[in-house]
């Protein structure tokens, strides 16, 4: 997708999101959905960058999210570090962890990367619940119950004050989205795509797989960890239930709906998935049925996700415009 179209879609999304609290600021129910959309949009975007653009089959996205959440919670609860700093530190810790996970993955390909990264996900539960986790302050099977809210300029940001928290998340989301767009559209993004299409050919052009793959692991895990930390201070408590397959599945549905490697499709995917999942909650068991049906329909009829028809529409208009322009030029010439 061209940078222009990408910015157009993202601007539309953020403009709409930005004014939402003016209409729904008093409705906690809607505000909660909006905040979760913002958080998931970034987490899913990171996954899309690593999987869709860099072509690395990483299944450790939820694990990075949880590592960020737990890191910030432990730092702020056990060491009394103010949440503003603990969130940043959590991002750095998760980034370093991403590099650690990325290193063995560089020697692997395809399904083996998926296995290693998913193994990280699987080992987190026993680690956090076990004596090692308890020793570092994970709270074991009970989890962490008293995560303090973020305090900035005398203002408290938590689930008790939804509008301030929304705008805090909104600002962070815009910054991280800009970073991701810059990465995708820069030389790095092109290098990711080249490595994804043909690693050998990319290497012959001087693109270092080691450097770029490690970089993508570090960057996406840093941002994911940052938003995991933000989530921890939003909900005020954590447990290893965050690592359930439910969270993993929801994140995957966002990717499928949005289209893998079709950024910013995944942002649209996050909006649809979170909204549907929350609005359908009163329908009980019909919620997963409807969600499942949507995924099946999309996989069958819109393999490139819901964003592909929009891109098609925008591109066809552009083509029509170009044709009209060339016709005008040629008629003038005559």
């Amino acid at each position, binding site marked *: 997708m061209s940078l222009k179209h990408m910015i157009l879609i993202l601007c539309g999304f953020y403009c709409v999101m930005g004014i939402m609290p003016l209409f729904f600021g008093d*409705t*906690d*129910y809607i*505000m*909660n*959905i909006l905040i*979760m959309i913002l958080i998931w949009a970034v987490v899913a975007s990171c996954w899309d960058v690593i999987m869709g653009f860099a072509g690395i089959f990483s299944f450790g996205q939820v694990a990075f999210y949880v590592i960020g959440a737990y890191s910030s919670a432990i730092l702020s609860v056990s060491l009394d570090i103010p949440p503003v700093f603990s969130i940043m530190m959590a991002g750095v810790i998760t980034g370093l962890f991403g590099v650690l996970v990325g290193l063995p993955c560089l020697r692997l390909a395809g399904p083996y990367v998926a296995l290693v990264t998913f193994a990280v996900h699987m080992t987190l*539960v*026993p680690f956090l*619940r076990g004596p090692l986790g308890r020793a570092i302050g994970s709270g*074991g*099977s*009970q*989890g962490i*119950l*008293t995560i303090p809210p973020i305090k900035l300029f005398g203002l408290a940001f938590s*689930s*008790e004050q939804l509008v301030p928290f929304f705008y805090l998340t909104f600002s962070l989301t815009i910054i991280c989205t800009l970073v991701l767009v810059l990465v995708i559209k820069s030389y790095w993004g092109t290098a990711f795509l080249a490595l994804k299409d043909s690693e050998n050919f990319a290497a012959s052009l001087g693109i270092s797989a080691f450097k770029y793959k490690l970089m993508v692991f570090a960057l996406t895990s840093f941002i994911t960890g940052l938003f995991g930390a933000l*989530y921890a201070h*939003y*909900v*005020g*408590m*954590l*447990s290893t*239930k*965050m690592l*359930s397959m*439910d*969270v993993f599945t929801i994140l995957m549905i966002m990717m499928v709906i949005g289209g893998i490697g079709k950024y910013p499709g995944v942002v649209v995917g996050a909006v649809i998935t979170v909204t549907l999942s*929350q*609005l*359908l*909650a*009163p*329908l*009980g*068991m019909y*919620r*997963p049925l409807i969600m499942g049906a949507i995924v099946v329909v999309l996989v069958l009829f819109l393999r490139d996700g819901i964003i592909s028809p929009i891109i098609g529409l925008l591109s066809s208009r552009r083509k029509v415009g170009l044709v009209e322009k060339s016709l005008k030029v040629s008629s003038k010439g005559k």
Partner: protein
Amino acid sequence: MRKTRFLAIIFTFVMLTTTLVFAADTIKVGVPLAETGAYAGSGDNYWKGIDMAINEINKGGGLLGKQLEVVRFDSQEFAPEVVMQGANYLCGKMKVTSVHAGWAGWGQDIRAYGKYDAPFFCDDGAMPAVEVYKSDPEKYYNTYFITDTGGDQANSMFNMLTALPYEYPNKKIVIINTDDAWGMEVGDTLSKQFTKIGWKVAKRETVPYGTNEWGPILTKIRRINPAIIHIEIPSSQEVITFFRQFIKQPTNSILSYGWSITPLEVLTTLGKDADGIVGEMPAGMPAPKAPNAKAQAWVDQYMSIYKHPVPAGSWIAYTSVMAWADAVKAVGDEYDFKAVNKHLKEAGYDGLQGKMKFGKNNTLHAQPAAPIVHYQVQDGKLVALFTDPPLKPYGEYKFQVPRWIKK
């Protein structure tokens, strides 16, 4: 294409607006339960009790002359943001007058519903939830824990196991529990209590949900040959597979399943094979014969509707709806939350098994009117051996030495 687009718009509009439409002459009752995911089974057990109470009230002319209207919400697997969303939806948007949740989380529910004033009844059964309540009792004044915590229930299990009319061949116990707050709480308490009286905890195994291959653990158990094997896994599949693999080469051990005996699927699957296993139900209804005619009529009605015995959660969920309705009736205004909460706390409720009252930390501690019931499976059914407190034999039912124990 246009028609499809039009239909899609109509569908979206209906989805978004139907929940906003409500009739003013009904009283809304919020029911956030796990309807999907790993805990959907226990969610269904609570729902049956709640539904029965709502139907009974509505058939009797409603509450304050109005019919009760249930507003449900799927709490899924209790992710904090989902629980928060449930509270915002039910209390904030739908303006329900009370919330009947069953098992609703491990503390995030207390925070989420503590933002509002509508009475919130939950069966969290673990200390973390109580700790959240204790962090600000004034804020969370509308929370009601409808059963004791895991630790208190484990103390009762210990008392029952040591009171069984049975001579243990040795003083060795093996404890297997899940790796969540509930399992750890029960396992720790039992371990402490048995050690205190000179028993040896020969093996303590903490397992994740989904453990169905018991070979390595059973090999060790067979080597130990303990007098008691206690299993605390509140999920049917794991305890069923354990029994199936244990019974192939059993040890001379009393099989104590704790709360794990109560999921409906355990007995419907194992049937008479499970004869001999002991277990408990907090705030339970003694069976097969209920303690009085009123309670027996309720059990009969339950069985005629659902065609199965009363599982854990059903009766106490029913009772919490009735207790709330009783308070609303006394106050005369379903939205006067302060007065309804005050009534619930101070007046208690005259239930099917007697007068019950919420105690310390707004918890319905085990009491004669809402006892912890200790059962043994006999002839494929749950038979009450003891009720607690005080721990005393129930009715004429007698403990039977399990068939796999060789004399």
